């Protein structure tokens, strides 16, 4: 589709990467300032009460209450779980979530409209099309929140993709919708918002065993799987290989999104990686608890094993709970530590890509200026948000105030981040046809890569979990099992 003559010369337009950084950081700043102005004193008092309290249940209650002190939170919501009628999805605890859904749509419309104006594109055409793409995202969330789908971990990404794919392949994506089909823009902005949730302090949540299981095994599996894909399977697309390796070894959908954006993977490659990951997640969350029970494995080791291997964050906790509360908690904590790795992985993949993969055939290695030009700048926004929020969460008032402040500030932005990803997956579907998707599965190599990589992941993670909790830190296992 041809836009009318742009008002701003192409050379002076903002790049999508910098715009994503600008918009994401603006949203985070607005959220933080609103929390500070509206509830700063309340948060300070709560932090003092928590620091002075010895009653764990009171601390829990105070923490939970403070985390929801965001003035923006009531204006950002999504459809809730429903069983027999989608109408149920429009209310939570007797309160309507419609203002929150409309509010999220309104905030994102204004946000991306600013981006469109700064890029010198047609605002009117974007706004009209955006409303429809947002409604398709609402439909995707509605499909994902049906209780059977919700409890079997078939996440919204899959349904958003399906909604888009069905429209583009069965009806055909209308041309007037295309101004709002902005996959990369939505993904990059969502990733900058996600950065605020990547808190490096969480890395220490399970001491040295947690670091060894989540931060030593995971990179080994990622690199080995990628090399296996390159040199043994000889997968044609390096980016497909990388996205599958990352989503299988790190943490499923969120890692796939971050890595795909860092290595500039094609949309259908991201779709393939996520579809495979979700399919194997459903299988693994059923099979692994059965294996743990059948072999009489210790719940802490079993939980750590599942936490390090099942891709999806939600499925990990659900699978662990099938064994015991201890297994569920350990599994969720290991996955949390692994989640934090996506910032580092995203940065390393971006550097590797611009330095080694995208270089010209003639040149040996690009210079620093060339690396800077090619580097996906949104990764800097993602890392900046992560570092700043990690510092705030860890530093102020012994960490208590800082943690409460970050938690309250991200209460609304994580909802917006979810909508950004949902919009992106609807757009991927709208831009993809089934034949392109089938091409990425050519020869079954991606499937073989996933199965081989996951097998290595299962073996190494089990070994490390056993080594850490059975041989090196048996006391930790005993304490966690209490």
């Amino acid at each position, binding site marked *: 589709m041809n836009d009318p003559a742009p008002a701003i010369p192409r050379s002076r337009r903002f790049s999508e990467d910098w715009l994503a950084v600008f918009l994401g950081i603006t949203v985070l700043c607005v959220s933080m300032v609103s929390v500070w102005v509206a509830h700063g004193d309340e948060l300070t008092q709560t932090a003092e009460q928590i620091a002075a309290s010895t009653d764990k249940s009171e601390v829990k209650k105070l923490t939970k209450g403070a985390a929801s002190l965001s003035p923006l939170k009531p204006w950002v919501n999504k459809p809730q779980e429903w069983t027999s009628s989608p109408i149920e999805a429009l209310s939570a605890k007797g309160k309507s979530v419609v203002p929150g859904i409309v509010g999220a749509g309104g905030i994102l419309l204004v946000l991306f409209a600013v981006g469109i104006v700064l890029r010198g594109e047609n605002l009117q055409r974007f706004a009209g099309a955006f409303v429809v793409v947002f409604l398709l995202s609402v439909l995707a969330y509605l499909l994902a929140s049906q209780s059977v789908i919700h409890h079997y971990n078939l996440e919204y990404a899959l349904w958003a993709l399906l909604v888009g794919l069905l429209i583009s392949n069965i009806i055909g994506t209308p041309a007037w919708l295309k101004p709002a089909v902005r996959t990369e823009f939505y993904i990059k902005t969502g990733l900058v918002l996600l950065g605020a949730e990547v808190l490096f302090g969480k890395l220490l*949540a399970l001491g040295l065993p947690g670091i060894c299981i989540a931060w030593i095994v995971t990179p080994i599996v990622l690199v080995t799987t990628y090399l296996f894909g390159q040199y043994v399977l000889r997968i044609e697309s390096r980016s497909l290989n990388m996205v599958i390796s990352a989503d299988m070894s790190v943490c499923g959908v969120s890692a796939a999104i971050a890595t795909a954006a860092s290595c500039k993977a094609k949309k259908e490659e991201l779709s393939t990686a996520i579809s495979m990951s979700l399919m194997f997640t459903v299988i693994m969350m059923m099979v692994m608890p059965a294996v743990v029970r059948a072999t009489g494995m210790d719940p802490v080791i079993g939980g750590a094993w599942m936490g390090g291997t099942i891709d999806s964050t*939600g499925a990990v906790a659900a699978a662990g709970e099938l064994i015991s509360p201890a297994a569920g908690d350990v599994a969720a904590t290991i996955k949390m530590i692994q989640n934090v790795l996506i910032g580092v992985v995203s940065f390393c993949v971006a550097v590797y890509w611009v330095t080694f993969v995208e270089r010209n055939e003639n040149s040996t290695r690009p210079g620093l200026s060339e690396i800077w030009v090619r580097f996906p700048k949104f990764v800097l926004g993602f890392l900046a948000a992560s570092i700043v929020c990690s510092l705030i969460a860890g530093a102020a008032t012994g960490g208590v105030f800082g943690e409460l402040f970050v938690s309250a500030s991200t209460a609304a932005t994580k909802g917006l981040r979810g909508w950004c990803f949902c919009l992106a997956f609807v757009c991927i579907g709208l831009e993809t046809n089934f034949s392109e998707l089938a091409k990425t599965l050519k020869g079954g190599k991606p499937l073989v890569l996933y199965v081989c990589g996951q097998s290595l992941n299962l073996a190494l993670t089990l070994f490390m979990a056993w080594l850490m909790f059975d041989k090196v830190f048996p006391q930790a296992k005993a304490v966690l099992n209490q």
Partner: protein
Amino acid sequence: MSLSTTWRGLLLTAALAVVWLGILPRVATWSSVQQRRARHEESGINPAAIFYSEQPDELFDRADVALHEHPEAFW
């Protein structure tokens, strides 16, 4: 919009309606599904979380308490 496109759209809508409004609500009444749902609700798990920040803090309490009360066991 051609007639065939309209029909394809209607068929697609009907298929989604049959699955989500007819089949899945019935599946939700199966005892295994209800047990799974009850277990998740009891422990506060969000099975559809794509990042740890979408899970309740209570899930990480065990590790937090263990690490603070027995730091020597983890380092």
